């Protein structure tokens, strides 16, 4: 049969172990939190910006071109004089589309054979959504596209 003091002893031992375990785990957690924050990339916030992309006369009449900027890839098309801008990133898995004017489509993604038309809609292939459309403004012979951009990640 356990005496009262034996019970007390057990309880005090248990408390000491508990204090040790809790303090230890919390401190380990503290280090883990700091180190995780160190590793997690410092992603700059997104900003909507009107960016000059290309000279107007570099887009051939009724033609298309993909412009690669440090902040994104823009697909531009001239449809009977109207300039349209889309994201050149295929909505399937992120490959870049290419200009490939045919009877049914104008943009082609080489990775999984996705095809888009002059309005960015999916004609065939696995892409789940149409191409993201961007507002365009042509001023003084330059094409400006309104994009959601981020500063490129800082690196050495």
């Amino acid at each position, binding site marked *: 049969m356990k005496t009262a003091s034996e019970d007390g002893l057990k309880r005090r031992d248990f408390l000491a172990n508990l204090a040790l375990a809790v303090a230890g785990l919390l401190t380990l957690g503290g280090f883990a939190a*700091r*180190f995780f*924050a*160190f*590793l*997690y990339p*410092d992603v700059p916030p997104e900003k909507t910006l009107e960016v000059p992309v290309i000279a107007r006369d570099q887009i051939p009449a009724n033609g298309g071109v993909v412009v690669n900027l440090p902040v994104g890839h823009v697909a531009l098309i001239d449809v009977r004089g109207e300039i349209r801008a889309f994201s050149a990133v295929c909505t399937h898995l992120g490959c870049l589309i290419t200009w490939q004017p045919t009877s049914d489509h104008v943009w082609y993604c080489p990775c999984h054979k996705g095809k888009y038309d002059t309005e960015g809609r999916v004609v065939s292939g696995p892409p789940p959504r149409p191409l993201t459309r961007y507002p365009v403004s042509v001023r003084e012979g330059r094409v400006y596209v309104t994009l959601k951009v981020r500063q490129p990640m*800082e*690196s*050495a």
Partner: protein
Amino acid sequence: MSAAAIRRWFAERVPIPPEMLRKPLKEELPTHLKTWLWAFGGTPLLFFFIQVATGILLTFYYVPYPLHAYESVRQITFSLRFGWFVRGIHQAASQLMFVAVLMHMIRVFATRAFRPPRELTWVFGVSLFLVTMGFAFTGYSLVYDQLSYWATTVGTNMISEVPLLGRPLLYLMRGGPDVNPNTLSRLYDFHIGVMPTLFVMLIVAHIALVRLHGVAPLEGDSDRKTYPFFPDHVLREAAVGLVLLLAVVVYVVLSPPGLGTKADPNLTPAHIRPEWYFFPSYRWLKMVPVQVGLWTSVVFVLSMLFWPWIDAGLERLAPGKKLGVLIGTAGWLFTLCLLVWEALS
């Protein structure tokens, strides 16, 4: 699911005999280990773990190519979240690791714990000390600021003084005749690949030997009182470790790391000095011709490595006169004097 059932599940799949698990925990240690002087054995290991952890974190951002290296260290020190903290710990712990290894070496030397049959433990221990110096040298070269670049140039130049093998060794270490982009890659690989592997192998051998032999008894100590490794000694080591960790963190908070000017291979700075742990050799080499300096250093290192046999030989030469303790202590004091002299000049 009871604790016993979980234990049984493990015991069936990882069949370690229970006695083998319990034995190291139950090991009885002589009570002379209870003094703070004996706390220095585990601390180098603690610092090694800290260095590996912070080092791995740093490799996520560090770039081992000239100029990029400097930029990446700048990014870590001034831009990244807690970058100053991770780098600060890595720097501070490297200094303390040196101190801890030295204190442990001095303690083992003073208590003559290297006596037979523990000579090999000592040899592995001194090898660990040499690898620690290697870590310090290669690590410092990675920052690629002025001091770092020129310290590397001077340090690697020493190798070319070795007769016959000097030049090929220098080319091997530098990846070319001069310090070039290959040099940085090589030193980086030594620092994060070759030396950690060596260190781990040596430390496993060192600790295995300590456990197998048991802690060396104190000379002339017939008192056989003991206390258990777990939980007594473990708690003691944990307390010491935490105090040291606390010291490191507080230090880094109060004195965060900085960065010198970018390395310029065309301009040697006016005041160039290695880190404090290299002061003794630095001072010595300033005093004597290079070849003399080189060979005396080699003899010094070899005498450290083979000290148990030198000590035994001295004991046979003059029994009871403790020549080993005298000469060894003279050696330590001489090194300390060189260090202090260089530090003050």
